[in-house]
């Protein structure tokens, strides 16, 4: 199902008596939520599997042409970082053109968060403010991965954070992150340009630089275009100013030497 691509979700349930619940999970030092999670993880509570559901998460119509334009004309390297199943992520990437079918076999083109974490050897420390800081212990491997990576599936919030941090520090890239969930907050915050969806989580919108009200990927391309346009205009303007000033300088200098006065005087 995941290859279709559908978002697959399973449901399960367990039953116990109220008495059992009250004695084992409530009124203790640890919260009922934590006790419940621990019991599930240790299989003290086993579930009855209800079923697997696949949901279609349709792509927006113009995404494919936008990605194509971004890759071929705007020289943007578009990557897909997703919490989804690896097959789902791969199918979506191929459908959107983020991953070309011929790239699919390349080393590091498709990775899961776990592989990524193991390969780049992440370590984390806490700084004085108590924030967690991640370090990439294998910068050479990271460089190689960053060059080829197109799809990162089953990625956690920290994987996204590490990828952005690494691209910025190890590869010296300008990084834009598009996201809408709580998971993306860290990465959005760290990126040079954070783009969030209008329909997304409030926390994500809070930390991002641009909020797309129409949830339209094309708009982020337009933002890149206008940003580059301003930059281009400034550099053109400076070029113009420098050229004019140098010509005037030369004219005045030559004038003073040849005619003993500036040729630019009004009187």
């Amino acid at each position, binding site marked *: 199902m995941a290859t279709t691509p559908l978002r*697959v*979700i*399973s449901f399960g*349930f*367990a*039953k116990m008596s109220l008495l059992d619940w009250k004695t084992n999970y409530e009124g203790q030092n640890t919260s009922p939520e934590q006790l419940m999670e621990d019991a*599930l993880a240790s299989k003290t509570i086993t579930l009855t599997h209800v079923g697997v559901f696949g949901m279609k998460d349709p792509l927006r119509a113009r995404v494919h042409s936008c990605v194509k334009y971004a890759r071929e004309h705007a020289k943007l390297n578009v990557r897909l970082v997703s919490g989804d199943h690896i097959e789902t992520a791969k199918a979506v990437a191929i459908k959107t053109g983020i991953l070309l079918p011929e790239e699919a076999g390349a080393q590091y083109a498709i990775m899961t968060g776990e592989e990524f974490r193991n390969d780049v050897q992440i370590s984390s420390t806490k700084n004085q403010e108590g924030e967690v800081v991640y370090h990439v212990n294998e910068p050479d491997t990271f460089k190689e991965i960053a060059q080829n990576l197109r799809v990162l599936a089953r990625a956690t919030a920290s994987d996204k954070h590490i990828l952005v941090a690494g691209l910025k520090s190890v590869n010296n890239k300008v990084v834009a992150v598009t996201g809408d969930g709580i998971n993306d907050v860290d990465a959005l915050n760290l990126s040079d340009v954070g783009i969030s969806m209008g329909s997304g989580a409030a926390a994500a919108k809070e930390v991002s630089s641009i909020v797309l009200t129409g949830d339209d990927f094309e708009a982020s391309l337009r933002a890149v275009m206008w940003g580059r346009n301003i930059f281009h205009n400034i550099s053109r303007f400076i070029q113009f100013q420098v050229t004019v000033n140098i010509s005037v300088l030369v004219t005045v200098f030559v004038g003073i030497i040849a005619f003993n006065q500036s040729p630019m005087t009004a009187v």
Partner: protein
Amino acid sequence: MDATTYVPVGNSTEVAFLKFLQDAEIPVHLLIQRKLGRIRAASPFSPERKRSATAVESPEHNDEVYIYVKGAPEEIINLSSHWIIEEGGHTTFEDLQKDELLAKV
């Protein structure tokens, strides 16, 4: 409250499920109302655990607590000991059947 006036909001995945039930003419709003005040514990979805779980005191049987878990198939299947079969009812979930089901996912 009429079913047509209830519009689910929130996480798009969950909204999709609620809308799916509404399309099947299941009175979602009444079911949601029934669980109000009966939730004993709710642990939100975490990408590390790949599942979310809620413990609800059963609205039908006063002395029972149901724990509902929703998440990635590989995770839920791994935690399951039983499964619901097509003929109805539930039986033991063997490893072989787990692998077969996972291969289809």
